């Protein structure tokens, strides 16, 4: 396969924003997107009129036809570049890639990327779970009463079988990310979490319990991408895109080529190659963590440890701030927020903040290069990106 054209150092993220997070019943999903967009714009110091491109993803709670156009209409912007990108949880990273491609080819100069929904209060919990059922194949999976946690549980079960990964190691992922969330002022979860609480939590789908599963939050997130040239004289320190790659192997679990190796290996390879960097160069990683098994697999596929060693990496404390490779320093989707495509978007927001510095206790010392991995579906669609500040 031909190597994708390089996007290295051509664009930068110059503004990031998070809406209010948690249970925000007085706001709509579009309102949360707008609040995040406004905060990202303020963060960048740009004007509304500077935005000539808008990308968004999808919404289960407000399933408008043409969500991209609907969001632009709501925001009162008339861009020359717009789309709704639907790659599940991989959408935010994929949107960054589309934005970079559009900017590099001159289709737009400054693009707002925005996602999120009011998943905690816009639907009842049962309605939210039912809507998510649609991720299973309607004819060959749904008749068997599976669930998204159930599909990921089968992946966890296989990982345990093949590599000897232990239940406690999965639980350590949840504990790790909760410790980080306590350092984030806007995180959904505010209470400390002990290993035993994760192990004792209500069982959902063996081996996963309630606390191995991501949150259901009201949340919107946004970031603004512009050319590296334009980024230099803006208000905030730019986070320059070094490498980005995607890979897609299936949608439905029954069609996954493997239950132990997914598309992160390939998306990561593309991103590293473009950046001219390897796992050893990464200072902080924000990995998709809809379920505790997922960052374990991502650590392995992205080359931070050997296959089968991801569980021990978390259990050994190596993913803590101050450890060998801090992972999900904002608290991830397990403890910071998860609301549709906003979940993975917050990993990008956090990577930018880490590269800017000044996060106090949450700051990874000397963070110059950050990796973010988003995945969508049942580890179906993957996108890996690497950002660096001007020192990285």
């Amino acid at each position: 396969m031909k190597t994708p054209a390089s996007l290295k150092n051509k664009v930068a993220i110059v503004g990031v924003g998070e809406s209010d997070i948690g249970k925000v019943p007085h706001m709509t999903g579009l309102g949360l997107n707008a609040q995040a967009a406004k905060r990202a714009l303020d963060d960048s110091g740009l004007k509304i009129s500077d935005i000539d491109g808008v990308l968004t993803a999808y919404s289960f709670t407000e399933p408008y036809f043409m969500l991209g156009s609907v969001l632009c209409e709501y925001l009162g912007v008339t861009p020359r570049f717009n789309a709704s990108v639907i790659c599940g949880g991989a959408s935010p990273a994929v949107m960054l890639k589309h934005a970079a491609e559009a900017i590099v080819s001159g289709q737009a100069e400054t693009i707002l990327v925005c996602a999120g929904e009011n998943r905690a209060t816009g639907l009842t919990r049962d309605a939210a779970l039912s809507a998510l059922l649609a991720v299973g194949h309607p004819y060959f999976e749904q008749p068997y009463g599976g669930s998204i946690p159930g599909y990921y549980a089968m992946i966890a079960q296989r990982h345990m079988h093949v590599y000897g990964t232990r239940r406690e190691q999965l639980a350590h992922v949840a504990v790790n990310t909760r410790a980080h969330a306590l350092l984030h002022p806007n995180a959904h979860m505010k209470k400390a979490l002990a290993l035993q609480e994760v192990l004792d939590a209500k069982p959902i789908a063996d081996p996963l319990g309630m606390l191995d599963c991501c949150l259901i939050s009201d949340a919107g997130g946004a970031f603004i991408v512009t050319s590296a040239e334009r980024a230099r004289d803006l208000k905030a320190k730019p986070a320059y895109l070094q490498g980005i790659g995607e890979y897609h192997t299936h949608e439905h679990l029954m069609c996954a080529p493997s239950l132990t190796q997914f598309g992160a290996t390939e998306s990561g390879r593309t991103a590293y190659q473009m950046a001219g960097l390897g796992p050893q160069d990464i200072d902080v990683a924000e990995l998709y963590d809809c379920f505790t098994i997922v960052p374990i697999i991502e650590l392995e596929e992205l080359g931070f440890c050997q296959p089968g060693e991801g569980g021990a990496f978390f259990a050994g404390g190596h993913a803590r701030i101050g450890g060998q490779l801090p992972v999900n320093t904002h608290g991830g989707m397990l403890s910071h927020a998860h609301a549709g495509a906003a979940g993975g978007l917050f990993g990008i927001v956090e990577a930018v903040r880490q590269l800017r510095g000044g996060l106090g206790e949450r700051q990874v010392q000397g963070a110059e290069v950050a990796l973010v991995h988003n995945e969508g579906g049942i580890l179906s669609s993957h996108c890996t990106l690497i950002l660096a500040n001007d020192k990285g």
Partner: protein
Amino acid sequence: MEQASLPSPVANADSKTYWDAARERRLLIRRCNSCGQLHFMPRHLCPICWSDQLEWVDAAGGGSVHSFTIIRRASDQAFAPLVPYVVALIDLDEGPRMMANIVGSNALAVKIGDRVQVTFEDRGDSAMVPQFKRVAA
């Protein structure tokens, strides 16, 4: 066993033959007459070589458990009365992989690698869904 309260399979143009055969307690898979490969999820063309020269063949019904989970909380309310129940990925002896429940009195003791055999569950109106039972090794 009849499970008429559970969702009936929905057939479309790709899968009508599959579900019609299930009513006759037959498990069908697809074979490509161009490259010879077998696959499970029926579609208009072969996912390997894109030939549209496909035929249906009977699977023998034997397989092994590639992975599984025990669902303790159902997302689909129709399944809530059944918890705990097993959802599994089955590797058919012919090669293709499919999803199904492991049913039977010893289903909850399932392990990866267990041998299983197809059985059919009546979802009402004689609409049958392929399921699997554990068999002794």
